[in-house]
């Protein structure tokens, strides 16, 4: 593994990244996860239930941003506890006619929030924003490190 618990400090940034999202990504996530709720792929249905448009699955956002942590830790199995609250929807524009242009861009930054030397774990606090607003709150991943 790339990271050792002994070298970490609380407040240390582990990195940051962006996740580009298209409507096609949401269809792929719907299929892979089994969550076929039409608010994630059908504009008319989303508007019909009072949303401004198609929104990403909260679980898509949660699942994609944690890659920052797994890649940093060096092993996806290092994540022993991962939680978040979903506060704001990520609205994904229909850019189907413009290949390569994302329908939404989510930004993520990870900081070491706590270290438990006895259990050899570190809590990584993720800040996840879309259009400058936090979409996940208390997004925390606990990783077990050597």
């Amino acid at each position, binding site marked *: 593994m790339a990271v050792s618990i002994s070298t970490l400090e609380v407040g240390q940034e582990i990195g940051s990244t962006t*996740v580009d999202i298209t409507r096609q*990504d949401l269809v*792929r*996530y719907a*299929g*892979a*996860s*089994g*969550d076929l709720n039409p608010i994630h792929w059908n504009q008319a249905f989303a508007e019909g*239930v009072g949303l401004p448009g198609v929104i990403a699955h*909260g*679980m*898509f956002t*949660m*699942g*994609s941003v*944690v*890659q920052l*942590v*797994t*890649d940093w830790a*060096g*092993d*996806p*199995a290092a*994540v*022993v*506890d*991962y*939680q*978040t*609250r*979903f506060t704001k929807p990520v609205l994904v524009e229909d850019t189907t006619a413009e290949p390569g242009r994302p329908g939404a861009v989510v930004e993520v930054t990870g900081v070491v929030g706590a270290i438990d030397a006895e259990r050899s774990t570190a809590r990584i606090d993720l800040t996840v924003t879309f259009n400058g607003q936090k979409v996940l709150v208390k997004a925390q*991943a606990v990783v077990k490190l050597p």
Partner: protein
Amino acid sequence: MTIDPDLQGRSYPAGETYSVGREAIRDFARAVKATHPAHYDVEAAAALGHRDLVAPPTFAIIVAQRADAQLIADPSAGIDFTRVVHADQRFVHHRPILAGDQLVAELHVDQVRAMGGGAMITTRAEISTVDGEPTATTTSSLLVRGEDQ
């Protein structure tokens, strides 16, 4: 529809077995844009000490949402699926989920709180192998919006 106030404390026994396949792990990893080789390549997973492909940290949602579906489909619970919003989610992994695992989930309704005209329902899925080895505990809060919300 109104939420049954006696829902809290209810449990649903393990339903069908979920068989974790390599292609399901690869498909789910691609779907969450995870690129770590341990999700795709058995040798890369083995190099990290895993007997087979490692599922991404949120993969257990597939098993958890199947368990939740039992509750949502239960007419006596009184939940209108079209009014459900996912409010929070937690995964505690007792050990990583790997390709080849045969998983079952027992669902518990831990809390039901009235919220305006609707309710916040917290469910917990205890996921284990068919042999009884604890694998993951997932907790979800679902906000069921009231008729006027």
